[in-house]
């Protein structure tokens, strides 16, 4: 006669190592891999601090993501210590893990002993479906999606660069999108500013952008600033944002933004475009160079291409804006290596991407100093500032 399920479990428990919750409690944070093998709903109702989640049904296919090193000490737990015992047996016998233990009594005994249980924030059913393709990639996952939902990102301009950035960040679930733009939608914008539409010509860009953002994701909070960023309003507007996306079309505002963000310690994802060429970098104060480390001063007005009426390939701000959106998501979630200390040059005609290194300038007039010492009247100022602005008109 075949053994009963209870007999099998009892036999398997005799074959594996078990560990008492008291010992697990002492080991928390000691580099031991702690894995919860229960189902998703059980995990979300509360789990041990620092536990990774690999449901027993996905053990063979997913355990390497949680415990890549087979010689590492791994402790499994479930509700009462049965499923974790079976999983420990599988990992030891079939998967070749060398130091796997099952926690006696599971999370039930853990709670009875009065130890801490974490209840993770979860997504509702609509969010789970909407962001399902993010949840499937480990670099984002539930934790990254929560960070995106909590993030506040400010877009300077709802123009060429800001349009695709805003749409994709809204779609990705960034919780709050601030938009600074004083213009109204013009027919000549629609060759590239894809957040606006023909029937919204004449409408303020912040309102038009809000309509499109809510069209793709009604849960995004849109904060509208129908104004031009200047020295009188910059500190008030940018404070409290986690990341700023810079797509402004003039040098004085770029320097002003740099100085204010260094002062407040806010990272800036910056892009510039002209014709068929684009530039991209991430300026994270004190982790890497700032805009003034890269360009101590702007070119004279006659060489500053933004000051005249210059053309741009309509697709180019799309390409560069989406590279900006990608860097924003990396900064918010912590995934990958943001483009800090590097400048990407994109040549659309030659289809070349070139990356050059940029360095912190030890003599930088702004970021080499104590940020508290940067005075209001210094921000955005550079040699010949008055002449520059007069010439630029």
């Amino acid at each position: 006669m075949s053994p009963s399920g209870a007999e099998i479990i009892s036999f398997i428990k005799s074959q594996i190592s078990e560990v008492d919750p008291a010992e697990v409690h002492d080991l928390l944070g000691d580099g031991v891999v702690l894995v919860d093998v229960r189902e998703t709903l059980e995990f979300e109702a509360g789990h041990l601090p620092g536990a990774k989640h690999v449901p027993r049904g996905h053990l063979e296919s997913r355990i390497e993501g949680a415990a890549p090193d087979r010689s590492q000490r791994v402790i499994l737990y479930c509700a009462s210590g049965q499923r974790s015992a079976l999983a420990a047996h599988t990992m030891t016998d079939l998967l070749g893990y060398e130091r796997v233990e099952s926690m006696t009594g599971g999370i039930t005994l853990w709670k009875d002993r009065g130890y801490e249980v974490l209840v993770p924030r979860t997504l509702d059913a609509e969010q789970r479906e909407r962001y399902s393709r993010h949840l499937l990639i480990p670099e984002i996952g539930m934790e990254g999606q929560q960070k995106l939902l909590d993030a506040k990102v400010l877009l300077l301009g709802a123009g060429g660069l800001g349009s695709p950035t805003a749409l994709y960040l809204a779609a990705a679930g960034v919780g709050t999108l601030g938009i600074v733009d004083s213009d109204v939608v013009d027919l000549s914008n629609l060759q590239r500013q894809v957040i606006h539409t023909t029937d919204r010509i004449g409408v303020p860009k912040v309102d038009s952008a809000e309509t499109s953002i809510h069209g793709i994701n009604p849960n995004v909070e849109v904060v509208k600033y129908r104004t031009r960023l200047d020295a009188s309003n910059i500190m008030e507007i940018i404070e409290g944002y986690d990341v700023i996306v810079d797509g402004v079309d003039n040098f004085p505002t770029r320097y002003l933004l740099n100085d204010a963000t260094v002062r407040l310690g806010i990272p800036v994802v910056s892009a510039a475009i002209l014709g068929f060429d684009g530039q991209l970098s991430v300026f994270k104060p004190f982790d890497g160079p700032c805009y003034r480390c890269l360009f101590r001063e702007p070119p004279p007005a006659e060489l500053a291409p933004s000051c005249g009426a210059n053309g741009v390939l309509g697709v180019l701000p799309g390409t560069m804006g989406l590279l900006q959106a990608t860097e924003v998501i990396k900064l918010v979630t912590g995934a990958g290596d943001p483009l800090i200390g590097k400048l990407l040059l994109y040549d659309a005609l030659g289809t070349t991407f070139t990356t050059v290194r940029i360095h912190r300038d030890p003599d930088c007039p702004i970021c080499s100093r104590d940020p508290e010492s940067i005075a209001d009247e210094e921000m955005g100022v550079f040699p010949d500032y008055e002449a520059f602005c007069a010439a630029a008109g």
Partner: protein
Amino acid sequence: MATIRIPPVLRPSVGGEKELTADGATVGELLQSLAETHPATRGQLFSAEGELNRYVNVYLNDEDVRVLGGLDTPVGDADTVVILPAMAGG
């Protein structure tokens, strides 16, 4: 003959070319040679004192020449020099 990549804002000064080759044993010589062949670039690259303008960055391959040997940085035939003035279009 090293390769020089010309940024959009300087292309009108070199007949629209995106890349040129020039002679020179150092970055400075290479840029001087460019300025001699295409005089319209001189004022954009160099100050009246002959220094590289502060709003122009020059990279040898992927490194800023200011952290190498500046204009004295040696250049080989296989090298690419990137001239990069600030750009602000959005």
